């Protein structure tokens, strides 16, 4: 198999790294080569976060080039639009509909564009919006948005859903196992 490129975008603190880890571990369990990379540091304080997961027979660079991503998973609409150019022609974007104000908007220095979703639709014919926050709430924890989002793309990945579920169960602790699995399945059902 050639390399399958996944880009995960979001806001610091949303659990982008955990989602990346789930996908990377699932690929390893499936006998594939994996490189996963995100830039942390300043991103933690509510900044924009982008993470790459590359899976396949043999993966060299840890970085996804613009125009080559098979799938973009975004935990926030504005971040989906910001990184949309990473998609290859025909690539798919799945995003959570709940908006989070950037600090520039919160402090009145900029406006959150009203037409973000319309812009995404206009630029990408393969776009899917997910009500991730309400699904996470139903699963029992608003913080499980990241698992909802992983669930929502599960069927589009070259990975078995069962393997992903196994990894989520392994990486979650205590009560989190149930919540995360519920969130994952809720996301899958909504896709």
């Amino acid at each position, binding site marked *: 198999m050639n390399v399958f490129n996944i880009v995960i975008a979001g806001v610091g603190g949303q659990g982008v790294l955990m989602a990346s880890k789930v996908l990377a571990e699932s690929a390893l369990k499936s006998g594939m080569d994996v490189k996963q*990379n995100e830039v942390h540091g300043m991103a933690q304080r509510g900044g924009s976060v982008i993470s790459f997961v590359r899976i396949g027979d043999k993966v060299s660079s840890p970085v996804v080039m613009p125009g080559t991503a098979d799938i973009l998973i975004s935990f926030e609409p504005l971040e989906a639009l910001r990184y949309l150019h990473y998609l290859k022609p025909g690539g798919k974007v799945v995003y959570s509909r709940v908006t989070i104000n950037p600090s*520039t908007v919160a402090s009145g220095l900029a406006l959150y564009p009203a037409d973000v979703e319309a812009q995404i639709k206009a630029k990408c014919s393969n776009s899917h919006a997910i009500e991730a926050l309400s699904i996470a709430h139903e699963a029992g924890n608003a913080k499980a948005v990241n698992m909802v989002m992983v669930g929502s793309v599960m069927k589009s990945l070259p990975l078995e859903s069962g393997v992903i579920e196994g990894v989520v169960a392994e990486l979650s602790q205590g009560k989190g196992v149930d919540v995360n699995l519920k969130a994952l399945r809720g996301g899958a059902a909504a896709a």
Partner: protein
Amino acid sequence: MKKIISGNEAIALSFGDSGGVFASGYPGTPSTETLEEVARLGEVYCEWAPNEKVALESAIGASIAGGRSLSTMKHVGVNVAADALMTLTYTGVNAGLILMVADDPGMHSSQNEQDSRNYAKFAKVPMLDPADSQEAYDFVRAGFEISEQFDTPVMLRTTTRISHAKGVVEQTAKIQPKVGEWVRNVPKYVMLPNFGKIKHVEVEARLLKLQEFAESSPLNRVEMGDKALGIITSGVSYQHVKEAYPNASVLKLGLVHPLPMNKIREFAGSVKRLMIVEEMDAIFEEQIRAAGVRVDIGKDRISLCGEVSADIVRAAAGDAVAKSAAPVEGLPQRPPTFCPGCAHRGLFSILSKLKAFVSGDIGCYTLGALPPMSAMHSTICMGASISAAHGMAKVNEIAGRTEKPVAVIGDSTFFHSGITGLLSMAYNKSNALVIIMDNRTTGMTGGQENPGSGRVLQGEPAGQVNIKDLVKVLGVEHVVEINTYDLAATEAAIKKGLETPGPYVLIDKNPCILRYRVKKPTIAVNQDTCTGCRACLKAACVALGLTASGDKPKVRIDPNICNGCGVCSQLCKFDAMSEA
């Protein structure tokens, strides 16, 4: 068993597997997780030092006492440790010593973009440059062997994309740590001029031997492919090269100093076009050109600034890259900002209001330089807030200006290199105000312990420096505690500090809310009283937002994000905010 781990985790794992005995470092992105992982693995003694110089010197002591040692830091940390490094290269080691340095090309979270390979050249020490997590693991083992075989410290250099990228790693058989003899050898370890002169000659001879070693070592390997294009590269650039040209001929350098010039010459002679792909400085290229080897593509086509990528490599060689849509322009930026509830927010909203000149430092509080606060006017390096403010104060005095500069520094940075600056202020009688934000953690790098946090790296309890007492002992008479959540009181305290002649220190002791998971009751906005004046937005908090309702948008607070610090409500002139 195969694991998927980051370069930093791989170095930590290998340190334990390679007979490591002692590790000391200072946090700094992207190096920080290395020592945290050594601590998590729990096999080898490790510690946070107050700064990189202390960390390296401690590792030197450990080596002299017979234990394989590791010192970790980010690129700029080597500047701090350089004094030790430049003479350590003369003394050499007893047990193996590795200095791990993590560079940050692209400046994802750094104040500059220096290339640590310069230090290997400068200090005349071997440097290893791993290209993925597996090599990061393997090169620790190789590093200790080289260190002991050649009696030299070894630099292990990573970059952000090696330190933080995760890849598959397989462990090798564990070497049991054993502590060797604690040697006494005056001519080797006492660098008086007479001994130093002898040692310098040895250093030059060692470099020649290392060069010979580099020629035959499997650390430097040729992957012969299509001979139309030959590429010399190392580190993560190798991965970008493989991505761009899977079939090209490649000379992959693992030992990047000293260079195997014969091997390079031979490789260059066997390919039609020679390209050098290196991030940041033209270290390879300058040496290779100086050796009289023709280079066809190098820094003339690849920038000295920022990271390399597969696209950059292809474009440099004159080939097409995958077309991508242009990024959407004009979107609101999403820069990092103080966490909701952070104690720095109150301080900077007052400093912004008072329009004081703020001599800043490096930590989360540096974000106070960004709009709308815009309340920091210089930030150079760790500790410079206080010493630079001192210089400003002296020139102000000479010029007859009465305005006092305000230095803002965090606890970790104060311990790192602020204490000596304050000592100078007290000693040389500075007319400056210093504000120490003692949140009892090293916040910016993810919340590491420090000598004031009351815990060591492993989490066990430790003594806790009382900064107020320390400041007094240094000779500062006026030391006052403040609470930056109380804006009016903070403003009054700062004004008093600015009006009182001489050195004056204010200390805020509110804990970092992210590190200590502080959760306060949220604040809500009464939509009937809110006039939409936007005064509260100056708090620059992501929990705040304008929502259109009627003719004028009013402010709402997202209860999922707010952490109840009350800064925005104190900025409100209409009493529209209260506990939800």
